[in-house]
């Protein structure tokens, strides 16, 4: 984890990317005529974007890297299942991605004076933990596909932005069209993130929070369960098509 996190590329991804998203968010807010940026959606949303990008890319590159270095085959012939290893790796990726979130939060509080007097901080903290958990569940789910074939890693590029848009990383879900809201309701990240943002804005009551937390938990477990069931099938597929190695 240290080697993967403490290098220029990883640190750039975790720091520069959320900064870029936050800056773009603030400029768009200003262009829309708002005197102050929407701190929760612009600044912290930028941190969530950074965390999500970091997790998706790192999880994908873990598998792609192992495939190209030939380590993936050795992992598969070891008694530890690829599912277990992916769970552990995705967890470390979520933890390193969390760094972006912390930076964004500190920036929002200390640089832009995010008002915390109305925020429900305990609820925001629980929501944040659930956000990490739901991001982890999606990351595990994706890593099964990354292992399945040589080209599946390229789908990361297609997934990164759609998930960010569907889950309302940088704006409230309520402004999305109806069909998008329907699709996003199947993604656990949407529910935990919405609960966190609304808690920071002091707009969430207990039934709202419990509903959102419950859905985030339920969907996260559903993704993990589906992944667990899929892994046997994926193991069979990779043993048939021989795509565990890059050559």
């Amino acid at each position: 984890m240290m080697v993967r996190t403490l290098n220029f590329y990883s640190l750039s991804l975790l720091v520069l990317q959320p900064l870029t998203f936050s800056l773009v968010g603030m400029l768009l807010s200003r262009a829309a005529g708002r005197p102050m940026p929407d701190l929760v959606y612009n600044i912290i949303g930028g941190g969530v974007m950074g965390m999500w990008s970091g997790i998706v890319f790192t999880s994908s590159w873990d598998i792609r890297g192992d495939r190209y270095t030939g380590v993936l085959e050795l992992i598969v012939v070891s008694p530890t299942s690829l599912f277990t290893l992916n769970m552990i790796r995705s967890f470390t990726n979520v933890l390193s991605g969390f760094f972006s979130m912390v930076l964004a939060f500190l920036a929002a509080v200390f640089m832009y004076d995010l008002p915390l007097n109305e925020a429900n901080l305990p609820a925001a903290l629980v929501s944040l933990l659930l956000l990490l958990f739901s991001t982890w569940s999606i990351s595990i789910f994706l890593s099964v596909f990354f292992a399945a074939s040589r080209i599946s890693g390229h789908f990361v590029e297609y997934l990164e932005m759609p998930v960010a848009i569907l889950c309302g990383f940088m704006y409230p879900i309520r402004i999305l069209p109806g069909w998008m809201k329907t699709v996003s309701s199947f993604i656990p990240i949407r529910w935990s993130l919405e609960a966190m943002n609304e808690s920071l804005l002091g707009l969430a009551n207990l039934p709202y929070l419990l509903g959102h937390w419950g859905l985030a938990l339920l969907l996260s477990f559903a993704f993990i369960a589906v992944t667990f069931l899929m892994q046997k099938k994926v193991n069979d597929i990779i043993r048939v098509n021989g795509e565990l190695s890059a050559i």
Partner: protein
Amino acid sequence: MLFTGSEGRISNQTIEVINLKKTFHSRQGLWKIKKKETEAVKGISFEVKRGEVFGLLGPNGAGKTTTVKMLTTLLLPSSGTARVAGFDVISQTAEVRRHIGFAFSGSRGLYNRLTAIHNLKYFAELYAMDVELTRSRIPELLELVGLADRGKDLVETYSSGLVQRLHIARALLHNPEILFLDEPTVGIDPVGARELRQTIKDLIALDKTILLTTHYMAEAEELCQRIAIIDHGEINVNDSPEALKKRISGDSVIEASVMASQVDFLLDQLKQLDGKIKIETKRSIEPEKIILKTRQPEKALELLSPYINHEHIIGMEVRSQTLEDVYVTLIKGQKE
């Protein structure tokens, strides 16, 4: 010690392969409509006894690595059966994996930005090894493969030979009874290759069963008790190196280095020889080579001796058939 398979069958064969086949299916063309089937392994059978070093020899694309990948559970056979350590490679993958170690050729299969010790620790965790055992086993293995003083160096600073030795240490971490070594000396300089062969010999002393794939006949001859030659997915022969050499013939080989202008003349002269004789020429840069394989080398020598001078034959060597001759004869025969 004999082991018992899952069906209660006591066997002395550590690896049993019966009519094993692997066909790869792919789609070609812009729209991926055209189906293509590639038969990489076409129904091979062999067995490896406990404590034996078994060589799988063959040219590139012969099916060696595909066979090893099926036996190490990385690939699912299309048909046939194979049991490793008494367990079925199709349905009992977890049991097979616990009993085997697998080493690649080349620099693949390791994290170059980690030290040898960190690589070994990582793989020890994958094998759920006890922390204390890992702590004692890593120095032992580094000592065994001659890397005791390089354990803290990054793998990216290693030569090919050192990387290969580290591969073997990694494959031995969980003390498997069976080792699969896929072309372990490929790309290694002669000194490194010799040291690696010595390491493999040390493993034989540890009672490991080894399935070795290689291109190098001398290596197979030095290390293997039995050898199977595989080509186009089929095993042509499977025997001890000595028996393989006898199988081809009891011929001696005469290799003459000849001035290019005299090759045709000397070939005409050799036509006088009676009996079964095989003549090959290697026409490249001067001097060219005439290679004779005959049961009566003395007659050929008598015929050629008058021409050993600066104008005709500038050098001559008489030797017994090597495994390489057997290999070339078999593979060439297959192609013809």
